[in-house]
């Protein structure tokens, strides 16, 4: 499909095992690049170091350096975790048509999508770890050494599904890439079961994360059956929206071919998901506000403020406006087909849902607290910098994975001695 380039190997390289070569070539690939690439990676490294510093402050002084307190005991970290699980789950939207429906429009995007899932999962797991008061005691979770409270604790479920999903999203692309690297077509018998599993898994990842909250009658704001489906809908809107932006960026900056049809189909997915999001939002708002019960106080705090406390009000309306506007743009066919409009809508939708998940999902579960007292919450610099560091880590991981995968998919990197047959399909 693309230019086939012949790699001229040194003689001793022929002897090296394929795996070592794969890793070595990948390392060589990710450590070389343009000045812009190095600047980008340098920036991410700097942000990661800043995050590490902020985290060290938190480790030393305790979680009190965050804005959290006994009444809002989860904040920015867990909000980000929630959003990122959705982002990771959204990779399924690319996997399913490619592998199951043999839809070739999505094929190139799949590996990128899975790289995004891996990065998002690593970020999600990191956000949980930095939220722990005793990260050094994580071994208490290891079955056998410690106690893994499964199936009672939904957090145990979440650990299971997140790590399983991470493993799946690492294994399947690795197998495909490695096969391509060796000039072979991957065998469907090997990866198709994994793909099917990962499709089920992706849905469960976000549902389990929703159940983590929805299962708590202590927090009426979360205690809704719609939480799981709504998580999925927002994930399938925000995930592919980011995907479109990333694919567009890859198309503009690398020789990797991204078909317009891929972007069009993704845009359709984003559109439908955005519409479903709005239907669900309306449904939630109706039940919260038609009769104003005490259980609706969290939602009242979020949308209108309560007793003069209204920190979140501007944010949530901004988020709603962004999602509504983005969905409107996407729904109008000519606008959706025009790249500037499409990209703007994707940015709006992504940021809108990030704000909605980041501020509007977790915090109103805690405000007001169970006895009705209102103690508001805002993240501190430590939380923001740690969060920024984790996002930089995610971007770093994604860049590394994409940078290593693209040349293989382009056929530029092959196992030493391999000659690519002309016209052989890759990707």
């Amino acid at each position, binding site marked *: 499909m693309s230019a086939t380039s012949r790699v001229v190997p040194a003689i001793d390289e022929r002897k090296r095992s394929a795996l070592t070569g794969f890793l070595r070539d990948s390392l060589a690939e990710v450590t070389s690049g343009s000045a812009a690439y190095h600047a980008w990676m340098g920036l991410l490294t700097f942000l990661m170091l800043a995050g590490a510093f902020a985290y060290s402050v938190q480790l030393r002084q305790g979680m009190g350096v965050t804005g959290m307190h006994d009444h809002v005991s989860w904040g920015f970290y867990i909000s980000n975790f929630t959003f990122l699980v959705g982002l990771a789950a959204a990779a399924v939207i690319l996997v399913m048509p490619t592998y199951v429906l043999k839809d070739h429009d999505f094929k190139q995007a799949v590996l990128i999508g899975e790289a995004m899932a891996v990065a998002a999962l690593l970020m999600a797991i990191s956000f949980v770890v930095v939220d722990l008061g005793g990260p050094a005691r994580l071994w*208490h979770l290891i079955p056998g050494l410690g106690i893994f409270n499964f199936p009672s604790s939904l957090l145990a479920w979440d650990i299971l599904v997140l790590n399983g999903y991470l493993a799946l999203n690492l294994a399947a692309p690795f197998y495909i890439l490695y096969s391509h690297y060796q000039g072979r077509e991957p065998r469907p018998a090997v990866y198709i079961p994994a793909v099917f599993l990962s499709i089920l898994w992706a849905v469960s990842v976000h549902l389990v994360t929703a159940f983590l909250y929805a299962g708590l009658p202590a927090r009426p704001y979360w205690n809704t059956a719609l939480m799981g489906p709504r998580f999925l809908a927002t994930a399938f809107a925000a995930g592919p929206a980011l995907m479109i932006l990333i694919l567009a960026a890859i198309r503009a900056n690398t020789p990797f071919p991204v078909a317009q049809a891929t972007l069009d189909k993704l845009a359709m997915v984003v559109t439908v998901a955005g519409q479903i999001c709005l239907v669900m939002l309306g449904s939630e708002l109706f039940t919260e506000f038609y009769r104003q019960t005490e259980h609706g106080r969290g939602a009242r705090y979020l949308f209108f403020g309560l007793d003069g406390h209204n920190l979140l009000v501007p944010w949530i309306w901004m988020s709603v406006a962004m999602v509504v506007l983005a969905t409107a743009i996407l729904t109008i066919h000519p606008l959706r087909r025009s790249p500037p409009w499409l990209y703007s809508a994707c940015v709006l939708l992504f940021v809108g849902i990030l704000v909605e998940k980041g501020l509007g999902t977790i915090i109103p579960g805690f405000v007001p607290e169970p006895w*009705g007292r209102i103690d508001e919450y805002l993240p501190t610099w430590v939380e923001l910098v740690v969060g920024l560091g984790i996002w930089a880590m995610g971007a770093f991981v994604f860049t590394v994975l994409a940078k290593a995968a693209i040349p293989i998919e382009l056929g530029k990197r092959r196992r030493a001695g391999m000659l690519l047959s002309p016209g052989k399909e890759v990707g």
Partner: protein
Amino acid sequence: MSVNSFRILNNKGIEQLLERNVDRRTAALTMAGALAAGAGLAATSANPFASSESREKARLNWDAYFQGNFRLMTEEEKTETVRRLERLHQLQNTDRIRVTALDAVPGVLYGYAFNISKCRGYMDCVRACIAENNQDRRSAMQYIRVHEMEHGQISFEHADDAYFHEVPAAGHFYVGTQCFHCQNPPCTQVCPVQATWMEPDGIVVVDYNWCIGCRYCMAACPYDARRFNWADPVVPEAELNRNQHYLGNRLRQKGVVEKCTFCIQRSRAGGNPACVEACPTGARIFGNLLDPDSEIRWVLRNKKVFRLKEDLGAEPKFWYFTD
């Protein structure tokens, strides 16, 4: 009695897992490679130039880091664990504390009743609780909240739990909340590592050495009963209550959750919780639900009692009533 039956879980805890004849420290050392947290301790405990006391301290901290879940410990392990706490305190401070690990007495299920007619908002209970349970003074941590309500409705939404004026205020009444030691506790169900559980005598406890600080239990509690150590807790040595229980008022660390334990160090020894003892109005009643002659049973029989948020099904063992 089903309430007292506990399933033995499949966990072993590291010490329980390792072969008995393997020296615990050696075993621990082999495990520790991946864990950065212990590195400093290991360095100190292996350092021949460190004083014997600091080496002992490092070794004890090291052992404490690898200790298993308290609930699954054998009697010997429990004894060893509380001795270690006592010794560590002695090494770090000038004087001694006494830590017990007294078990639940069979045939006892603790219950509590609160007389709304009697409470006058003095908050003697809160003060006694802080002193008894060695709560962090810096963050002014409190387990008990006393809500000042206006006559006419029982509404926590409109109550004030931070009043400071002469009490009882005209036209107001007072309702105290704390951990209700639910018989079907939502908090213990969600803990990913079973660091919190209900004891056979109905007390919901936390193993502060096992808690990883995820705070899921705080999100799950419908009664705002749990507190987190957002920083290293501070209790002046002079104010320290030296009579401690492992699952109760012993000193906590930063990053762990704690809560009311019905003053387990007192109740298991036959005493009343500090709040009950301190209340000058007799609004607080504590006793054995399984003893038909107990005061708590008399209240349940003779008063019109209710519990808060009964619809959630947590089955609190904490009842409210009026005269």
